[in-house]
């Protein structure tokens, strides 16, 4: 068990990768065996991430060096710098890892019955597993170049998944847009990594953070990184790909592509807090991120209100919700250099932003899955053509209500808790920002009331008389997320204290991150 915990950072990446290459072989013989392999691999990944998380909360962060004599030997003998591939998993990384693994598991279970209608299932599962590899790798890596590699894995598999149903023209468009945006983003990241390597001859995040000078080249690199990851996160004004891509991605993969965007948010946070930390001009960078957040929040929700395509509507809400996270984290960055303000409200703001990531992954994931369930049963995503579905699809209706109440921040749901944390702390920083955030929350409620009313209530429509509830695996996939939402809503204190606050502390603790790799050097 102990050695399993020691090796769990790499196993959480390697096992889905192994399964991704096994599925094409097994898929040739039996599609049932293939489905089982996929689910088992993702369940094992989830288990590994959970035991790793338990150990990190108990005894601090984990360093794993690939190819070394022992996993903690980051700097080889006779070397002053870490030259090997290093994974560095702290409370924040593992927090994101839990989200990715959980959503991937729910999405894969949800996809099983869905894929019976489609051809090319083997390729679908290979891509789904590779997307999981990309997300977890991006979150666990301690090395900038590997961050780029995993970003590429995540982007290419995500683009292929988004364009999976090639019989629809809009699917090809959505997939292609995602591919172009990702390719540009990844190249910009590579350019920034090149800038660091040219200046410092280093790629390891901890080693770079230790010698970071914040020269004008570093400033350029920071701008490039914020732009690239902001683009992948679909923050306004770089959001144009998100509605097209999220609305066409098949079945369970929409939540996964969404969580992949959150992984890019993690990369942005990691770079701001750990790589640059207080060496950068924190209040300017903080305000830039706040402005990106407020724009995303407000423009996302105002465009969402008038959508009639249910998945496009949710995609615009996804943009708007990312704004909350950027707002919370931006406030945290803005006061990072000021210990008094950081203790007074900065930490709460960061915790609120981080807590919103997990809440959002859960309820947004659930809502995307219910929208896909409607599409699965009705064959349309147009809200104007739906109606009275609460009669035919009871469970889906319940799941939709849970998700909609949570996203609108209705107490006692989990969306309320994280939004309240953001409101409170942001109000102390700048009252106007908190007022905008509340307004956005009201608009969110308005648009979900509309979506609920037109899809689920109203008279029964004759053309949908034969529509039945979706198959069991889809319900199980949605159920996993719904149960987690209810749990998070009932015990917000427990969740904040066990997983959110350690993540915030580890983000702020830049020195701890550096010394665990660099040791006494």
């Amino acid at each position, binding site marked *: 068990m102990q050695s399993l915990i020691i090796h769990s950072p790499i196993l959480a990446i*390697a096992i889905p*990768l*192994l399964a991704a*290459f096994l599925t*094409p*072989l097994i898929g040739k013989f039996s599609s049932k065996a293939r489905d089982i392999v996929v689910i088992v691999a993702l369940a094992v990944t989830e288990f590994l991430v959970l035991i790793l998380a338990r150990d990190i909360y108990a005894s601090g962060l984990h360093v794993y060096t*690939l*190819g*070394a*004599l022992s996993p903690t030997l980051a700097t080889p003998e006779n070397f002053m710098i870490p030259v090997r591939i290093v994974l560095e998993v702290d409370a924040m990384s593992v927090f994101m890892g839990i989200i990715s693994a959980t959503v991937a598991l729910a999405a894969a279970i949800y996809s099983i019955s869905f894929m019976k209608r489609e051809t090319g299932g083997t390729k679908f599962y290979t891509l789904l597993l590779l997307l999981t590899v990309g997300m977890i790798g991006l979150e666990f890596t301690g090395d900038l170049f590997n961050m780029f590699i995993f970003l590429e894995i995540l982007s290419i598999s995500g683009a292929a998944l988004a364009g999976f149903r090639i019989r629809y023209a809009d699917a090809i468009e959505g997939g292609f847009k995602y591919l172009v945006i990702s390719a540009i983003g990844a190249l910009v990241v590579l350019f920034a990594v090149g800038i660091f390597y040219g200046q410092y001859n280093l790629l390891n995040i901890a080693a770079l953070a230790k010698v970071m000078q914040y020269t004008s080249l570093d400033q350029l690199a920071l701008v490039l990184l914020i732009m690239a990851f902001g683009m992948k996160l679909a923050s306004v004004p770089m959001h144009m790909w998100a509605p097209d891509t999220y609305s066409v991605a098949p079945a369970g993969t929409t939540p996964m592509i969404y969580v992949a965007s959150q992984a890019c948010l993690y990369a942005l946070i990691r770079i701001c807090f750990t790589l640059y930390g207080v060496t950068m001009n924190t209040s300017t960078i903080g305000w830039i991120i706040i402005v990106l957040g407020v724009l995303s929040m407000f423009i996302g929700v105002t465009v969402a209100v008038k959508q009639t395509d249910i998945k496009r509507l949710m995609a615009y809400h996804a943009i708007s919700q990312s704004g909350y996270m950027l707002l919370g984290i931006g406030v945290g960055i803005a006061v990072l250099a000021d210990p008094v303000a950081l203790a007074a409200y900065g930490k709460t703001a960061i915790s609120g932003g981080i807590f919103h990531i997990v809440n959002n992954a859960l309820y947004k994931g659930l809502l995307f899955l219910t929208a896909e369930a409607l599409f699965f049963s009705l064959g349309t995503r147009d809200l104007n053509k739906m109606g009275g579905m609460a009669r035919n699809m009871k469970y889906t209706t319940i799941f939709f209500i849970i998700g909609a109440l949570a996203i609108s921040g209705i107490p006692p749901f989990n969306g309320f808790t994280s939004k309240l944390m953001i409101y409170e702390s942001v109000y102390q920083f700048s009252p106007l920002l908190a007022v905008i955030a509340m307004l956005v929350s009201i608009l969110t409620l308005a648009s979900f009331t509309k979506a609920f009313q037109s899809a689920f209530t109203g008279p029964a429509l004759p053309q949908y008389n034969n529509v039945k509830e979706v198959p069991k695996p889809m319900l199980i996939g949605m159920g996993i997320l719904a149960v987690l939402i209810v749990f998070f809503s009932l015990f917000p204190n427990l969740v904040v204290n066990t997983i959110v606050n350690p993540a915030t502390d580890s983000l702020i603790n830049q020195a701890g991150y550096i010394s665990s790799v660099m040791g006494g050097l």
Partner: protein
Amino acid sequence: MMSKIVRTITNLFTPFIFMFGLYVIIHGHITPGGGFQGGAVFASGIALLIVAFNSKKVQKHLKEHHLSIIESSGALMFIGLAFAGLAFTFFFNILIGSPIFGQIPPEGSNPGFIWTAGVIPLMNIAVGLKVIAGLSAIVLVMALSSSNVRIEE
């Protein structure tokens, strides 16, 4: 199908292209190149065959079905070698000091000892297999679909 001159030259050339591709793969750890580069050279030989003869004729001897099995096996072999080091760490070079590729070369310039570097040559071979199969399949499928052949999933 192209003219007789092209086909004759292709027949003469392809064995050498294949041989050079395999050479680059196997010597990946001591000379420039490696699995990817050698695999690409090898696959370019296949591309030459497809251009000179036509894709349907090549398809008779080279099925996409088999190529995808080889591709997955290459990837599995690579990740399997990485898993083999798990007694120490993932990717640990277990073959150093063993009779297979285990020799440690003397310091200083040397003509190149092939029997060295542990798992790295094996990983080059695994990557080489994957790239040969993958690139050949891509070229073949593109050629087939441009000549309007329906390809099963």
